[in-house]
């Protein structure tokens, strides 16, 4: 910025007078709480990343994860946030497989969310590089590189900006293997990473979660990690699988979600949902950021009306693990699906329809969807549009009382 003249300093002082309303800081450096809850709130604003049971606050809990290979469970852990976990996965992939490339807009200096920090310096700009500002161009480029045997990890700066590449993803990446028939050519190894979801002040174009659009496309895998540990293991699997993967990173978690993560490399399954908490009365299915909302709601609900809720992280949005969800719902008899993106034709619709088809006689209440409303994410209205602790809490109550 221009150097401050003394008069500007005086103005700064003027501006520094105590004020009532404090918005969260800035778009890329997301804060702990995406927005400040109402002063008298008891439910909203109770997501505490420091203590949530969804994150591993100790090394021991991190290494107890049964999905980790035995040698990793004997190793060390390190406390890192989600963008560092992404960085570590990319670093490991670049180190161990020379076919891996990392590119996208502004990634050379570390990316606007710092996920690719130091990778260009350490692996060279042949393999880690800035692309011109064109999503359709860079995704098409990635598909071409993958089709000739590389494993490109392309970054879209925000999920909101993936749409210029939609044709490349839906008509090209997703259909490459199928249309190639016996030529055997495909674009497996391709991963398209993108930050997704709301942060409190992203408005129309820095808030969207377009996973349902990709889940409507055969041939793609759609993955959304909830935590640093998950991000590292799922991203490594995404790079290793021979299917193209849409890898959506909840951007509010980049800094907010901090936990103990195994130092060694490991792969997490791309076809398994995970039961995060067992319960008897209701199954809550979600993924990404809203899992933290659900967890806080469950805590309040269990305390307030003595119910017991099971929480499931889908992790892979498509193809998804029906078995784990159905098994849980057959046990609890009730289900709630929670996601940020809007209800109509959303992931919740598919989950609810599947439950209705395959567990109808076990249901004690209609499957409830707690999702974004049928509107865009207007800047000042986000807190009314995106599911919060109150709405999930109320859904638990209503579903149990049904």
């Amino acid at each position: 910025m221009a150097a401050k003249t003394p008069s500007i300093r005086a103005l700064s002082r003027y501006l520094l007078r105590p004020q009532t309303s404090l918005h969260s800081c800035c778009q890329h450096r997301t804060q702990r709480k995406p927005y400040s809850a109402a002063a008298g709130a008891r439910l909203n604003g109770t997501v505490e990343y420091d203590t949530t049971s969804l994150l591993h606050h100790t090394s021991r809990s991190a290494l107890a994860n049964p999905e980790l290979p035995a040698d990793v469970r004997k190793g060390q852990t390190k406390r890192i946030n989600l963008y560092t976990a992404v960085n570590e996965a990319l670093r490991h992939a670049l180190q161990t497989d020379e076919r891996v490339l990392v590119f996208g807009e502004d990634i050379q200096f570390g990316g606007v969310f710092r996920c690719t920090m130091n990778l260009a310096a350490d692996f060279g700009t042949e393999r880690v590089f800035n692309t011109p500002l064109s999503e359709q161009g860079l995704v098409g480029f990635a598909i071409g590189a993958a089709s000739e045997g590389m494993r490109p990890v392309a970054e879209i700066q925000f999920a909101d900006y993936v749409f210029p590449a939609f044709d490349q993803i839906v008509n090209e990446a997703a259909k490459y293997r199928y249309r190639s028939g016996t030529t055997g050519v495909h674009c497996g190894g391709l991963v398209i990473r993108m930050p997704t979801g709301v942060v409190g002040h992203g408005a129309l174009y820095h808030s969207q979660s377009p996973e349902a659009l990709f889940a409507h496309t055969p041939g793609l895998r759609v993955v959304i990690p909830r935590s640093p540990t998950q991000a590292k293991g799922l991203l490594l699997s995404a790079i290793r699988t021979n299917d193209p993967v849409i890898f959506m990173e909840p951007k509010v978690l980049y800094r907010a979600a901090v936990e103990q993560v195994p130092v060694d490399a490991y792969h997490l399954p791309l076809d398994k949902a995970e039961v995060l908490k067992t319960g008897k009365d209701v199954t809550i299915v979600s993924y990404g950021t809203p899992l933290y909302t659900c967890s806080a709601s469950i805590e309040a609900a269990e305390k307030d009306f003595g119910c017991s809720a099971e929480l499931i992280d889908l992790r892979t949005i498509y193809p998804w693990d029906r078995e784990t969800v159905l098994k849980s719902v057959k046990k609890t008899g009730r289900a709630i699906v929670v996601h940020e993106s809007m209800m109509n034709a959303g992931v919740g619709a598919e989950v609810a329809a599947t439950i209705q088809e395959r567990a109808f006689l076990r249901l004690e209440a209609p499957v409830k969807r707690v999702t974004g409303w049928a509107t865009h994410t207007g800047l000042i209205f986000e807190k009314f549009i995106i599911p919060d602790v109150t709405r999930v809490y109320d859904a638990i109550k209503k579903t149990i009382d049904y």
Partner: protein
Amino acid sequence: MSLRQGTRRIRINKAWEPSRCLSGSQTPRIPFGWQECRSVASTASAERVLFPGALNSKFTNTLKFLRPSANEAISTYRVMDQSGAVIDKEAGVDTEDEEALELYRNMVCLSIMDLLMFEAQRQGRLSFYMVSAGEEGISIGSASVLSPADVVFCQYRETGVYMQRGFTLDQFMNQLFANSKDIGLGRNMPVHYGSSELNIHTISSTLATQIPHAAGAAYALKLQNQQQPEVPPRITVCYFGEGAASEGDFHAALNIAATRQVPAIFICRNNGYAISTPTSDQYRGDGIASRGAGYGMDTLRVDGNDIFAVRRATKEARRLALENGGKPVLIEMMAYRVGHHSTSDDSFAYRQKVEVEDWKRRDNPLTRLRKWLESRNIWDEAKERELRSRLRKEILVAFDKAEKEKKPGIKHAFEGVWEDITEEQKMHIEELTDILQRYPKEYDIEQHEGGLASLLELVKTDKK
């Protein structure tokens, strides 16, 4: 020669005869479509070949690839030098003193507002901001020579266009604070202004999408200009960054604008950076101006630090854009992005502080105009101080007022998605209303104009 078989040669002057090749709506200067020229014969002695795709190409037996890097770079038009001295005294600056003073006042106002709002964002008073530092001359200068009726499409770093066209400080502040008086109803991120009164479409964060819109809107204006000869003709003007010019939409827009010969000026602000990406990673040709030739467009590169050059270039481009019913013009305005990309960015993570300091010292649209004003003895330090202090006060008054306003009514979260509220939305509104009523302590609805009544009214009035 192998070409001979499949190709019909003609004498080039014949091909250009309107009676043979041009459809009625086209003027003789407009290249014609290949279909209409298929039947044109050529003679054995012709020196040019009439391939349908390249109608005026000479034969050559020299094997020589075009090597753009070997060409001299496209030159940069300027009117005054860096010390504010006019280069061609005869041509002058084409600006009255009073007009120049107004431009200067607006540039200063913009730069003060930028500093204040950047600082205010740092203090958590608003969620986001973007400054125009280094590009004030481009936005204010170009806007100053347009007709108020011309239709404008912006990217986001053209606050000066709004200011020059008459967007008030109150309107800026209401948008930045997303309050109940915001024209955009609190829906958009800060700096995504819009104004139908000023004929500026509302900004979308999605880069380059506005460029084809500008082409289409210009086509609408072209037809309307024809249909309403009594109304002064209008053009569209479209602003975008050199980074955005890498998007497919840019290329698609210029191409369709050229084929439909629309009255539009495409103004690229080439400020050297797209967030962290320097132009060396963005393109390898001679800037954005070099693309104009590819689309058959009149093109000019301009020194964006020279507001008189910006004005004259834009004025002439407007004249060209309306020539013969319309044609697109491309202008590349050169600048240096002095500020960080936005409040979310720390540019010293990818560029040296000295680079910025050097640029600021070397050249700047404000100091250049100030030097010129001082050379004409119509500006001095006392006037400067008086202006700055007055503007600061005005901005702070608007700031204070806007910050105290209520937030927009919650109904605006749902309205405007479709023309009318849908049945599905009604269900959603009812569900939300029910939550807000049963959990009043969880939400600050009273901050919003009308509180809960705003939502209820929506469901009620719609039911009628």
